[in-house]
């Protein structure tokens, strides 16, 4: 049931920011917002519609790299030739999310900022730790789809596939708020449960995500993204991986931890070595070091090993 609210079509970024008083929430594509409203997770006094702000959906590349507006849809990212050619992991992360109809509407900004899919979090009948309650129900509950790293306080997996690719590509986010504008490397944007369990990112209540910058990959660098779900038709991943190969290999796991999980251990195995079955296998093994699976999600370990290995090899082939 959706609690009633006012609606405001914002005209400019400043106009939108002016409405952010802690009782309003922003609607971009509206996909995650709609779900949260229907599940009673949010009851804002006002919805600030930023779809009406012109110019926020631009995608352009310059010498420095790719500039993506927050309102660019997942479908636009998937179909963009530049992104597919040079920022492949991003195109694939966007192109494999949700369903075609949702991708037509869901925005890259909204996707990065969406809240977790944990079935305790999404269910208003469970007043969990993240929502201000006193316990994480997943710890002793049905944790099949939950985190295998960094999961001792809250076991959500970060819900954004696009974030996994952006972390791998070393993206920077531009955030604009009442106190001005800031740039933040995306890896620092996400918040771990031990830092603050009530949020997943550092976006303040009066801030808007206004741009995403991805540095131009070094020449000879390739990226890949792979997603594995129990179903292919429409399913959240049980494992997803983004890999960038080049001078500095980057390996990021999604659906593994409360934030996109960079694997320094896997990266160390790859760095300076030829990419082949053996190094990929070794890197994949290393990626699972330190995993702390819960009662029901140990199965993710061998799956991640496979997906990490396959993604490394896929990146090597592009």
């Amino acid at each position, binding site marked *: *049931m*959706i609690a*009633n609210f006012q609606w405001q079509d914002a005209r400019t970024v400043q106009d939108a920011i002016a409405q952010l008083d802690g009782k309003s929430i922003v609607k971009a594509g509206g996909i995650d917002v709609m779900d949260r409203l229907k599940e009673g997770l949010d009851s804002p006094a006002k919805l600030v519609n930023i779809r009406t702000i012109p110019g926020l959906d631009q995608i352009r590349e310059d010498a420095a790299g790719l500039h993506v507006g927050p309102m660019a849809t997942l479908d636009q990212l998937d179909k963009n030739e530049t992104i597919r050619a040079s920022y492949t992991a991003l195109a694939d992360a966007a192109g494999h999310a949700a369903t075609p109809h949702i991708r037509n509407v869901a925005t890259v900004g909204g996707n990065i900022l969406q809240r977790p899919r944990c*079935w*305790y979090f999404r*269910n208003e*009948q*469970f007043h969990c730790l993240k929502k201000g309650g006193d316990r994480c*129900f997943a710890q*002793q*509950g*049905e944790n*099949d*789809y939950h985190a295998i790293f960094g999961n001792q306080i809250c076991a959500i997996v970060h819900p954004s596939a696009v974030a996994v690719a952006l972390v791998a590509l070393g993206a920077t986010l531009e955030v604009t708020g009442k106190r001005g504008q800031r740039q933040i490397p995306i890896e620092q944007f996400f918040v771990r449960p031990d830092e603050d369990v009530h949020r997943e990112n550092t976006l303040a209540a009066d801030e808007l995500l206004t741009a995403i910058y991805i540095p131009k990959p070094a020449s000879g660098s390739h990226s890949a993204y792979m997603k*594995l779900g*129990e*179903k*292919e*038709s*429409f*399913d*959240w991943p*049980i494992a997803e991986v983004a890999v960038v190969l080049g001078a500095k290999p980057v390996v990021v796991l999604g659906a593994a931890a409360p934030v996109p999980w960079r694997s320094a251990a896997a990266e160390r195995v790859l760095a300076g070595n030829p990419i082949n079955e053996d190094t990929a296998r070794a890197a994949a093994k290393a990626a699972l070091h330190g995993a702390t*699976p*819960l*009662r*029901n*999600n*140990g*199965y*993710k*370990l*061998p*799956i991640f090993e*496979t*997906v990490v290995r396959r993604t490394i090899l896929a990146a090597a082939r592009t």
Partner: protein
Amino acid sequence: MAPANRQQDKKKQQIKEEPRAVKEKAQEQTAAQKPGTRNESVYVGIPGAEALTTIERTVPADEPPPLPPNNQLKYIGTRVSRQDGRFKTTGAAKYPSDTHLPNMLYGKFLSSIVPHARVSSVDTSAAEKYPGVRAVHVIENDLLSAQVLDKTKEVQSKYPVIRYSGQPIAAVAATSAQAAQEAARLIKVEYEQLPFVLGADEARKEDAPNVFPAPAAQPETAGGGGGGAKVPQRGNVRGPERRERGDVLKGLAASDVTVEGEFRTQVQTHSALEAHGVVADWKPNMLTVHASTQSTMSVRDELATIFKLPKSKVRVLTEYMGGGFGAKFGAGNVGVVAVHLSKKAGAPVKLFSDRREEHWTGGNRPDSQQRVKIGATKDGKLQAIEFTSHGTAGVGTGAGTAGPARAMYTCANLKTEEYDVFTNASPGTAFRAPGHPPGCFALEQAMDELAERLGMDPLLLRDVNDESPARREERRIGVEKFGWKQKFRKPNSDPGPVKHGVGVAQAVWYRIVNMDSAVEVRINRDGSVETRSAVQDIGGGIKTVIAQVVAEELGIEPRNVQVSIGDTVSPPGPPSGGSMTTTSITPAVRNAAYKAKQHLLEQVKPLLKGRDPASLTLQQLASKLPIEMVSATARRSPEYGKREGMFLGGVQFAQVAVDTETGIVKVEHVVAVHDCGRPMNILQLESQVNGGVLQGISYALYENRRLDRNTGIMVNPNLEQYKILGAMETPKIDAHFIEHYIARSSTDAGGIGEPATIPTAAAIANAFYNATGVRMRELPMTPARVLAALGSLRQGATA
């Protein structure tokens, strides 16, 4: 595959009428003729497997002459487009949930969250005062739950005991859906929580909390899958229902090879796309209910009883409905509550479950924990079948899975025991072949293992033990169409990591006839033809089959037959379940059309001035009617021949690919060969088989109703985490049908809905074994379970 075209797809077949000893058990005597009957020679046999012959049957005198085999018919047995197709594809079809009546109110439930509680008070005052609210109703009796048999032993309480999370407590009707929802949340419930138990294994323990304080049984109206009446109950365990013949221990002792195994399956929710619901309109002279139901008659009868109305003052309408799969028999809590609200408010009330409520209360297929032990001699002949099943239908009953073990194969020594285990979970209801998909998952894998141990081809093992001539022919056809001999290799033949394999499994179901099947056929003076019956169409296409039968009988095109269904004002119709609809109603349709034609001829013959009526079209004949129309109503006449069990069945072959590194199973190809008596509409039969196979794949690989073990709350009451197969999981499916004439009725048609889904999971499991050399004994075959079975997990455990 060709589209609808009644000229194509007819098998050219010679029918030889050689005298031949038929292995029929019922041979009718031609001696003393009962009055009102006559003798007929009716076709029996399976074209293609054997030469067709005829058998003598005593039939009612007013039955039409027997039909020849399909290749001599014009519309029956061909591909005919659905009558209502163009309304469904354009959004013009109005479903019960699309109904909008003047002054209609919107209903909303308040449901329990806790799984077990005694309610001491329900305060609806705030809800009643809420703007827009016109009525509030507190539920007095959960219609779907089992009831304690000795009422004095039930927990004494003004309100029904809450026994599962999601149990409805009360409902509100208001002028808008939002107002109803907001008001429902204001209902205050005081309660005392009671200890609860969730899984069958836990509930069987000596110290488990009791779900019911005394023996309980699920009433028939709940549409449960069974669970007999007089069955002992100890704690939460109800049973056994035992069937025995011969001596199983002797049989096992006499066996050269014995196979034993345990198998487990999960709870599956029906998840029809249209949720349970009605629009109820209580008016002084008539209660009208637009119901999403599989049985208009069951809704009418139940509401008449509960509200103490004559049946003539209750009308149920179901022109279209969005799926049922067994969950939608009877008025249900939703129907009864909607009527209460409408009566109180003096206005129509629309009450439908939302998707969450649909998962909570819409019914489910119980889970199973099965033990099977079979033994055979070296030649493959089964000597013993021992089968035990436990399972939970929550607060309902009907979890037994021994059907296939009892009915599929010939075996002198058999012992089956079925137990229901009560748990604090929502009640199970009949779900497309109750008990049979899980029962086959166990039995057909045991047979598969037996074949391997005997060094026999699995099909040959079935040939040795399966008496069914239909399945014998289906195996033969399937082997050829599937390419079994080329594809069936030793287990684990591929190096991997992706391994391919093939498997086969069989279905047995029952020919069920519902005698409350009647149809009226009218021929109007302008030659137009109408038919009406209360039967409903849940998607199987009975509406079009009715048109075909009338068309065949009257010599007009099916699209010129106006078919009205789903209205209890019309002659009674059978439920759409048990795969009985086509079996039950088509003879009544044929008989009514035949009678109407007789009436027409009686009326117009004297006016033909000697012309032969066969030289005139129906329109020409009708134009001579001295009165506006002729009509005939016919009901289903009893089956020809001696009463005995008759079966429906099928054989399915599956090819799978198993990614042994990720645990993902992909079904690549299914060949399904089925019988349904006289096939009526090949296009629709293909759709039914597709649907059954796809539901079977979804059951085998993805679906699972999950309860949080600590609170009893369902964690996936949606269509995102309750995983139903989609377009990307759909394999190539080839459906083939045999004609199986059994000379039982004037159409000799049978059903197919259930057989289509019974063997699929078993076939996939057998294919999985063939691919990997590892047997999956638990469903669903998620990556977690597959990897565990393949031994790939080094740490952690599976759900």
